[in-house]
């Protein structure tokens, strides 16, 4: 392959980051995310077991449903016995609990945070609003279906779901993880352009790189 060709391919690998001002282009990474596959089956099985026993949740209340996360941490419901722990930074978290309705302004932050989490990463969507818009289905600034913007592993219906429902949701997530079904991270990469198209369609004021590393 000629050098020119390699350059072209490399350029395809790069993101355009068109919405950034020129002087900031060099301050953000412009690499395109890639899929990272699993290890061999048995080893990955072991890892998935460990992952499912140690779910680090991003403590980021994106909607009213986040209110239900607080009792989950208290003595009454005690999520720590399932190995669930809140982490203050997306870099370290593995589970993103989207707490209910997501306005356009919030979904932008959700996308940022989701992309900054290190895979394998899981999303639990909380409440009816994330499923079909819920009571905000006709609102001009609330999205209706979360799975058009980020891959969702588990939905928990309800308006709002009780902590018990949340625990049930987490347990469902654990099962899925152990079954190796939670490949949202790779899914996002594979359908990257589709997700971006959807995201950019509603987020007019993009003002961030196309992929937030």
């Amino acid at each position, binding site marked *: 392959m000629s050098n020119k060709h390699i350059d072209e391919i490399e350029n395809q690998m790069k993101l355009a980051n068109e919405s950034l001002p020129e002087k900031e282009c060099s301050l953000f990474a412009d690499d395109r995310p890639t899929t990272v596959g699993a290890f061999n089956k048995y080893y990955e099985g072991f890892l998935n077991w460990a992952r499912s026993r140690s779910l680090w949740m991003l403590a980021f209340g994106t909607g009213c449903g986040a209110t239900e996360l607080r009792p989950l941490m208290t003595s009454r419901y005690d999520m720590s016995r399932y190995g669930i722990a809140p982490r203050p930074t997306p870099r370290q978290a593995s589970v993103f609990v989207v707490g209910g309705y997501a306005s*356009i*302004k919030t979904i*932008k932050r959700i996308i940022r945070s989701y992309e900054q989490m290190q895979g394998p990463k899981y999303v639990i969507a909380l409440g009816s609003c994330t*499923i*079909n*818009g819920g009571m905000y*289905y*006709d*609102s*001009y*600034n*609330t*999205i*209706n*279906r979360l799975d*058009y913007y980020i891959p969702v592993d588990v939905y928990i219906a309800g308006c709002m779901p009780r902590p018990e429902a949340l625990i049930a949701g987490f347990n469902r997530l654990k099962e899925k993880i152990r079954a190796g079904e939670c490949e949202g991270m790779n899914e996002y990469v594979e359908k990257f352009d589709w997700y971006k198209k*959807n995201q950019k*369609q*509603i*987020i*007019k*004021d*993009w*003002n961030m790189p196309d992929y937030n590393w």
Partner: protein
Amino acid sequence: MEQLIKKIKGMVHLRAYGKQRDDLHFVTVDKAQLEMILAHLKNYEGFTHLAFLQAVDLLEEGKFRLIYMLYNYSTNVNLGVNVLIDRDNAEMNSIHKLWAHGWQYQRELHELFGIDFPDSPRVHESFVLEGWEEMPPMRRDFDTLEYSNRTFYQRPGRSTNDPAEYMKEKIYKNYPAAPVIRRDNE
């Protein structure tokens, strides 16, 4: 309070006066005289606090009603000063010099109702809607459902239930009707 209303009447053209509660009154004044009366109320009558500035879309009349809600700390009285402005090319003088925080309300009104406040700081920056391109969404002629359908992806199979009926049917089917509690003030 009557005295105050009288005084206001003496000063400006008082279009309307209404009393909602003992501590909540509304007056309607002319657009041109608004600033004067607000300044007077703030400086001489003790209405030092601008509780909020809000707009009502009077689509049928082709007007916006702006409500400047003032509060007097010493007498605990709320006074809403209303002013009607034209809906087309809606524009109003800024009051950020009277109440510094007014600019924030005006920015909001500009974004959500499309009312312009020339001179108000940062009034044209986006407030909660980042990058909104349509008609200001709080105007009543904005069809939000249509917008939602057009913009967001609907999940098919959506249905709506009245929660009370639904729960009665699903959960409390076998229970006797709940006793009606009579309250004294009803």
